[in-house]
């Protein structure tokens, strides 16, 4: 069972109160992009065993989207942060580095 803290309400939400939104920090490639970029935007997803960044929605609560950093293998949650972030905040990255030295995720490290 996954328990994430909603950064907006500050409450600890159970997985069943949340809606999963897939991988975080995707950059949209729309009209004018190349076929490769569009394919990557639509289909190419990370599927790591370890550190992962995801989008979640506090569906049965405030209804806001937020980001979460967690370990897919151990379900350890490194932290949650607001949806308006374009990349993981330094504070979250530091926490992950402290626990998983040498981690990388896409071009984030």
């Amino acid at each position, binding site marked *: 069972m996954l328990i994430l803290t909603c950064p*907006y*309400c*500050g*409450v*600890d*939400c*159970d997985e*069943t*109160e949340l809606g999963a939104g897939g991988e975080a920090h995707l950059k949209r490639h729309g009209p004018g992009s190349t076929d490769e970029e569009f394919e990557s935007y639509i289909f190419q997803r990370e599927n790591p065993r370890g550190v992962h960044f995801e989008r979640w929605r506090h569906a*049965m*609560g*405030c*209804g*806001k989207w937020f980001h979460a950093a967690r370990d897919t293998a151990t379900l350890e949650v490194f932290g949650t942060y607001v949806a308006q972030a374009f990349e993981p905040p330094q504070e979250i990255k530091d926490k992950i580095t402290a626990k998983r030295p040498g981690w990388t995720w896409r071009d984030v490290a």
Partner: protein
Amino acid sequence: MSDVVTALDGATFNGTIAVEDAGLTGMITLRGDFASTSFQNAVTGVSGVNFPGKGEVNSVGDRGLAWMSPDELLMIVPYDQTNAALAEITENLGEEHHLAVNVSDARAVFRLRGNGNVIREVLAKLTPADLRVAALPTGRVRRTRLSQVPAAFWFSAEDEATLICFRSVAEYVFGLLRQSAAEGSEIGYF
């Protein structure tokens, strides 16, 4: 004019706690910028209670304000004053960006009375929310789910809780609470 009734029309149940239909309750959903002083003034002026902090519910008598999300409040007023309160909010806010809707007839409100620990237990059987006093003290509102449907509840006193759900699922929620509060189903966890 038609006879206005709640979804459960005053149903009550007495088990380990008392579950009752709270009757007609005026409710207004408000969205706006919480940081704006004019929004705060308009809302507190009409409701007559203090602006709630994050996750809080403030109530005085049958009026109240509950924090629903960083940009949403639920205002509780006497049922027959709902439209007047709505008109006042709209007038006070004028051109300021906001949303105010009368949702009185779209929600069902329950009152749970009894031993506070038993009320917590009855709810804890139905929701993943943390119901320990430390996590949900009096005056703190929690939006969560009750079995399969969304709901919100708060303790107005340690022996009384208010629960709000959608009107369409009122019968379902009443059924859940009846079963959860059935005689002989006490666990004594809290």
